[in-house]
């Protein structure tokens, strides 16, 4: 709750500062132009956002967060990384939802390679973000090119993470208290 208000205040301050800078450096017409562009953008993405939020909420009722973890252990090999990558891409919602799920997966037995692959697949190739934002704003040619280039990266990162001699267990995470045992925060 506090974090969300802090985020809102920081974002508001940054937006206000950039608005003042535009007014100061480029004049009032530029401010109006930016606000007009914002309005067009809202009209473009609002239908996708409403649909995306409904989709992610419905999926959360159907798929329990820990259901895939037994497929992602240290012995799971390349298949475990593929499963983690697919789960990360299917993971709806923003960082509020995704990072707590990492804790849930880790506690349920996913190894560090699978966790890294999961985080990267979510942040790089999250299906919901591609459909809601990238496709409508940048068009299918660019979105497809970007996705093709990003597709192998989570598996690569998972392999590197398994190879690196840095151990990590959920006990090292500050968010462990209270988060991993309850359902992840639902903000998207």
């Amino acid at each position, binding site marked *: 709750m506090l974090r969300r208000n802090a985020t809102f205040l920081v974002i508001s301050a940054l937006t206000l500062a950039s608005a003042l800078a535009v007014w100061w450096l480029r004049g009032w017409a530029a401010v109006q132009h930016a606000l007009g562009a914002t309005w067009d953008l809202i009209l473009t993405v609002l239908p996708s956002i*409403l649909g995306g*939020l409904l989709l992610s909420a419905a999926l959360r009722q159907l798929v329990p967060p820990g259901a895939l973890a037994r497929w992602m252990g240290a012995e799971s090999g390349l298949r475990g990384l593929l499963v983690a990558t697919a789960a990360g891409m299917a993971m709806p919602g923003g960082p509020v939802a995704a990072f707590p799920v990492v804790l849930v997966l880790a506690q349920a037995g996913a190894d560090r390679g699978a966790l890294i692959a999961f985080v990267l697949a979510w942040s790089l190739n999250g299906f919901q973000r591609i459909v809601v934002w990238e496709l409508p704003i940048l068009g299918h040619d660019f979105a497809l090119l970007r996705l093709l280039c990003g597709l192998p990266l989570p598996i690569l990162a998972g392999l590197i993470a398994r190879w690196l001699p840095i151990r990590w267990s959920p006990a090292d995470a500050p968010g462990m208290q209270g988060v991993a045992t309850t359902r992840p925060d639902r903000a998207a």
Partner: protein
Amino acid sequence: MSFGVIAIWVVALGALAMCLRRSPALGRRAVADAGGALWRVLPVMLMALPMAAFIAELIPAGWAEQWLGPDSGFVGVVLASLAGGMLPGGPFVTFPLVLGFLKAGAGPAQMVALISGWAILGMHRTLAWELPILGGRFIVLRLMASFALPLLAGMAAELLLPLFPGASLR
């Protein structure tokens, strides 16, 4: 109404129907959850959306073309990856900015690197979410495993670009 919007609504309504078939209460909870998420996300988003437009007004004309143009090659890919890592905020800031850059003449391969840098290195998300939840050790592990990958994405895009003539939006 783009194809993407229709697709997401079809899938969303399908998932909702599956919830309702299990039990009406589950369907109601899905709708309530979606409403709650919208209520939490909307204020931040409405404040953040104008930021991209304001920043776009501030970026000097020709900046993207000069430094991140289609001919900027590997140097452009490196610059774009780093710039992506420093972009603040979520997809509602990044994708409109990239649209502006592309229209101003930035190279698509460089923009692939920029989006990848934003997704992988993203300073803002790392500090605001990953650090408090997963801790510094996880971040070190993740960054060591992935810091070079945006460059790889940009170079791959450079190779694949001829197959996607519509990617430059010009």
